């Protein structure tokens, strides 16, 4: 069964550094999403992406964040200058009729 994959599984970075989280959506899906879950809190929507552009974004998705589909398979989330409060699990999802989630990347900002 096809799955959404994410790399790395765990990323540790220093505050102020840039990080890129990578996702490979399921191949025939057209809609892509990023969510995050801060420890002990809800899974929160960040951004959705369709047809090579952002279709919707939340208040969390400020100028520090960007998304890109650099080739036909990858879907990336970039955080330009990480803050301590960016520490969370970041989930990628892709959608046919429903959203299928990847295993997540645990981002730790020190």
């Amino acid at each position, binding site marked *: 069964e096809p799955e959404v994959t994410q790399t790395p599984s765990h990323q540790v970075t220093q505050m102020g550094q840039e990080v890129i989280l990578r996702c490979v959506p399921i191949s025939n899906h057209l809609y892509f999403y990023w969510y995050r879950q801060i420890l002990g809190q809800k899974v929160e*929507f960040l951004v*959705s992406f369709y047809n090579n552009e952002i279709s*919707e974004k939340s208040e969390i998705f400020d100028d520090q964040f960007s998304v890109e589909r650099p080739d036909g398979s990858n879907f990336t989330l970039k955080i330009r200058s990480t803050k301590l409060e960016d520490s969370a699990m970041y989930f990628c999802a892709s959608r046919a009729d*429903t959203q299928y989630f990847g295993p997540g990347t645990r981002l730790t900002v020190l």
Partner: protein
Amino acid sequence: AQSVSQHNHHVILSEAASLELGCNYSYGGTVNLFWYVQYPGQHLQLLLKYFSGDPLVKGIKGFEAEFIKSKFSFNLRKPSVQWSDTAEYFCAVNGGGNTPLVFGKGTRLSVIA
């Protein structure tokens, strides 16, 4: 504002006990409803979904959920839980199409022998 409430933070059951996890939502307009499960160390997996039609939906692994529109609820049930059902369960809602999911805080289920 759109929101999902899951009333139980942590539920502990013995094997073979019946399960009901509560979920209430606040969402204007058309709703699609979902239950996702996250087993320890694994990713979110879809258990079941409701788009329209029969309000009683059956999912994988013997789970079912009932949409009660008048109560804005979508409770998850299973008649007899197993140790392997130990996981975190998330209720979610969206407005259909490619609209983002709004999640509840999750309910941790621990099944003991």
